[in-house]
């Protein structure tokens, strides 16, 4: 093979790779784009469509956004605030409780009957394997008896339960890697055990805590099944608000798309921050000349 044909072959395969990536990008991105343009359409631009390019084949309007800012404002803001409260609040509780438990599992030997550290971790993590429908049918009855159905406290409890296995799992490994000598030094300085954890260990575990927080936030924000079964008026989240708005013969796609765009902002922020964390950790790992 001459150098020229080799060069041509390499350009060819590079082009093929770029084409494949572009194809995948189109598949991944188009539905999001479709939602974006739908949020700026008139009903007739939807039902006589499909129209693809704003200004070219349809005139964008702010109709949906005016409706959200006007008549639907209270409903949407109510759902938005609930969603934010549940996601941010339960993620915080789950990370704090998860960090303490992870610290315990990393530092102390446990023995409850036949259950030791690994068994306890497995018990906690196995909750994530259980399909939520199994717990939720009973949870519905239990919440109703405890008058927690459709309350903010109830939903904070439910989402903390949802996230705690994840934070314990993620943070145990993290805690193991924090050198125990630092705590011993703090103990010599007269710190109690609790102060050692709070003032020495947790600050060191900050990157792990942040990652666990973002993931928990993301999962609660995107939850649908818990909110669908356990709320109906006071504690409804944004997904339930959207569901109620769509419960009609012909759903108002422009409105749903607009609220959908709002609902996508927090998880996008969370995941792009998370991506930074992953990248930074990868960059610190030994990897040739990079």
């Amino acid at each position, binding site marked *: 093979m001459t150098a020229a044909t080799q060069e041509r072959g390499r350009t060819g395969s590079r082009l093929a790779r770029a084409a494949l990536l572009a194809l995948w990008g189109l598949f991944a*991105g188009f539905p999001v784009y479709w939602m974006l343009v739908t949020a700026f359409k008139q009903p007739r631009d939807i039902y006589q469509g499909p129209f693809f390019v704003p200004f070219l084949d349809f005139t964008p309007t702010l109709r949906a956004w005016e409706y959200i800012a006007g008549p639907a404002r209270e409903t949407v803001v109510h759902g938005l605030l609930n969603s934010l409260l549940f996601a941010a609040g339960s993620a915080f509780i789950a990370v704090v409780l998860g960090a303490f438990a992870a610290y315990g599992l990393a530092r102390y030997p446990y023995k409850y009957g036949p259950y030791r550290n690994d068994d306890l971790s497995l018990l*906690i993590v196995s909750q994530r394997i259980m399909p939520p429908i*199994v717990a939720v049918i009973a949870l519905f009855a239990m919440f109703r008896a405890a008058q927690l159905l459709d309350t903010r406290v109830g939903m904070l409890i439910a989402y903390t339960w949802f996230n*705690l296995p994840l934070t*314990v799992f993620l943070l145990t490994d993290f805690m193991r890697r924090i050198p125990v000598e630092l705590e011993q030094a703090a103990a010599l300085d007269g710190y109690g055990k609790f102060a050692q954890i709070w003032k020495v260990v947790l600050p060191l575990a900050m990157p792990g805590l942040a990652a666990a927080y973002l993931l928990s936030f993301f999962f609660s924000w995107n939850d649908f099944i818990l909110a669908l079964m356990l709320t109906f008026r006071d504690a409804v989240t944004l997904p339930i608000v*959207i569901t109620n708005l769509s419960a009609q013969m012909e*759903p108002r796609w422009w409105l749903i798309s607009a609220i*959908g765009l709002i609902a996508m902002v927090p998880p996008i922020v969370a995941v792009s921050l998370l991506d930074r964390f992953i990248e930074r950790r990868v960059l610190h790992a030994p990897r040739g000349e990079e």
Partner: protein
Amino acid sequence: MKGLKHLLIAPPLLFFFAISLVPLIFTIVLSLSGYSIGGDFSWVGVDNYVRLASDPMFTKSYWNTLLYVLLGVFVQYWLALGVALLVNQMASGSRPLRLLFLLPFVMPPLIVGFVWQTMFDSRYGPLSALLRGLGVGPVLWLNEAKLAFTSILIVDTWQWTPFMFLILFAGLRTLPREPFEAARVDGASDWRIFWDHTFPMLLPASIAAILLRAIEAFKLFDVVFYVTGGGPGGATSTVTLQGYFTALRSGNLGYGAAMSIVLLVTVMALAMAALVWLKRLAGRRTRRMERELQAFSVEFRERTAP
């Protein structure tokens, strides 16, 4: 501070008992009863389970769920691996592309359902327009059993391939470079390099991605709920969806509970089988490495012997 150790682990264990174990037992008890909302409690033994076996809607939902897991995980794994390899080969500037690829995963599942409902619409959906342009005539995606099933699989693939991509890409980034450079110097083809080096070294990440994805796939609910509502005629229904309709919409808590217990037992059995298999696989690998090491040391001794 002797109690501290117990205090630390108490909250997760409390949550485990109160919101996982107690409801689980409660659900098992429910599943043995004919209890429905507003009705009386009565024991029916295993009647609910017997009834499930001959309930066509449930058996359909059950097999659908298994098929979604099997087909979905298979298709999504290979697609995600392909995309991860391609992105990993890019010299630099892959961050915007990566974020674009992650968009579907970031979208709340309920919105995913709505968007794809408009995508599939036979009158004003862009997919139908595309097919019309190709001369294929109006496709009623969601009205025919097999097509509707495929549609859900397409949406599931769109939504979850990014998740597997994320794990596999992170795995690829941590692989050492030397074996690949050595193989390239030896003149190995890309195909050989993939099967001899990349794939085996990526195995832990692959297993993690497949297990995590499979566990989530068993819970499939929201997208089906919105795109097809389980129809036509149960062709796209899943166990969770069926359980939700039975227990909370129709109020047959006992019968719905039995459905969810069958799902739980299935997931647990498969998870156990996977763990046992993985342990055996890991054992075989260690034994093989030991054998190779022994063979090497024998050879080494023979060669260095005077």
